[in-house]
């Protein structure tokens, strides 16, 4: 081979080797972070890997509190997970939602609805029958898979209230029903409109189901 060409090839190989080394380093670092925490390995927020969406120091602290707080064998962590501490009954939260508007709340309950198209929300059943609350997350930032339907989740986020006129509420609920492939009855919406309360979610922990 031409010595000049060989020299070029050597340089190029060095560049590629450096790139592969960076990749390998990433893999090793990632494994080192993921291994100790099974919750993270199962799809949770990896502080080293999601620096763009997580506040690393805060997240790390939260992730630790999550694993300490969860009943064995733990759960799958979504987004920033949840902080340790008691959860508020959904019935209590929805009895006086105005009191909690803009505040971070943490609730727990079975998942009775999952956004089928984007996985961008889940619905948590209340401790009171026929009552639920939606946890809405940023599209793509957290994606809830439909397989978690029926499992129990602990979710955290800021409670928000969205006032809607009758027409706005009908349009919104109609669209949501259409996305879910369900029917919608406009007569179920009060003429004066509604205020929809939901949790703008920052994270969730989905506990392993009993049968799996």
């Amino acid at each position: 081979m031409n010595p000049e060409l060989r020299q070029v090839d050597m340089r190029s190989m060095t560049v590629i080797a450096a790139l592969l080394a960076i990749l390998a380093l990433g893999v090793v670092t990632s494994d080192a972070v993921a291994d100790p925490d099974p919750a993270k390995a199962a799809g949770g927020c990896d502080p080293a890997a999601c620096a763009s969406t997580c506040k690393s120091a805060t997240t790390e602290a939260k992730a630790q509190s999550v694993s300490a707080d969860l009943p064995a064998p733990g759960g799958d962590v979504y987004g920033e997970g949840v902080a340790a501490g008691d959860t508020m009954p959904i019935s209590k939260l929805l009895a006086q939602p105005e009191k909690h508007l803009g505040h971070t709340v943490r609730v727990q309950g079975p998942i009775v609805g999952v956004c089928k198209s984007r996985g961008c929300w889940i619905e948590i059943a209340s401790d009171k029958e026929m009552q639920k609350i939606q946890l809405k997350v940023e599209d793509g930032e957290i994606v809830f898979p439909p397989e978690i339907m029926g499992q129990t989740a602990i979710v955290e986020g800021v409670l928000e209230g969205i006032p809607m006129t009758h027409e706005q509420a009908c349009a919104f609920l109609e669209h949501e029903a259409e996305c879910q492939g369900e029917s919608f009855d406009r007569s179920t919406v009060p003429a004066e409109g509604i205020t929809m309360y939901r949790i703008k979610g920052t994270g969730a922990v989905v506990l392993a189901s009993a049968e799996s």
Partner: protein
Amino acid sequence: MSKFRKVCRFLHRELGFFAVGLTVIYAVSGVAVNHVEDWNPSYEQVRNEWTIAAPGIAPTETVSPLVLEQLSLEEPVRNVWRATEDVLRVITPSATLDVNLASGLVREERLVPRPILRDVNFLHLNQGKGLWTWIADAYAVILLLLALSGPFLIKGRKGLTGRGGVWMTLGFVLPIVVVVFEKYL
């Protein structure tokens, strides 16, 4: 051939081969998730309807065993939730069944994962986080190197100073035009 051009060719060729598999994954999934408004790119929705003897409107503790007995599901039940006065929702690992207590109508919905597509979407949307985040980052760097080395592979009228340059300019102009029209006008 200049040394710089030789390096570009080498990098473009070697990294290009490496990027084939990853590019196919991102391209296929890209088209699939681009049309999420029109279809579910990861799951096929299968719906069934049938009727059971109407258990009637009664407390959940009373109707729940009656409904479950009639459904005689093969899967374990994860949860039973009283959605409304006349609807009981039964959730199993792979299906959701809404049972109308007044009419006995059962609406079952199953989300069946689409083969291959579900997995490539899982990777594209980085749902697993962790390891794939690093691989995707490395792939992004490789794409950047492919893009930066590509224009210097050949010179002349098909290269950067000729037709190639026109194509490259179009590639820059197109997104700028779309952003200006869609966002600012």
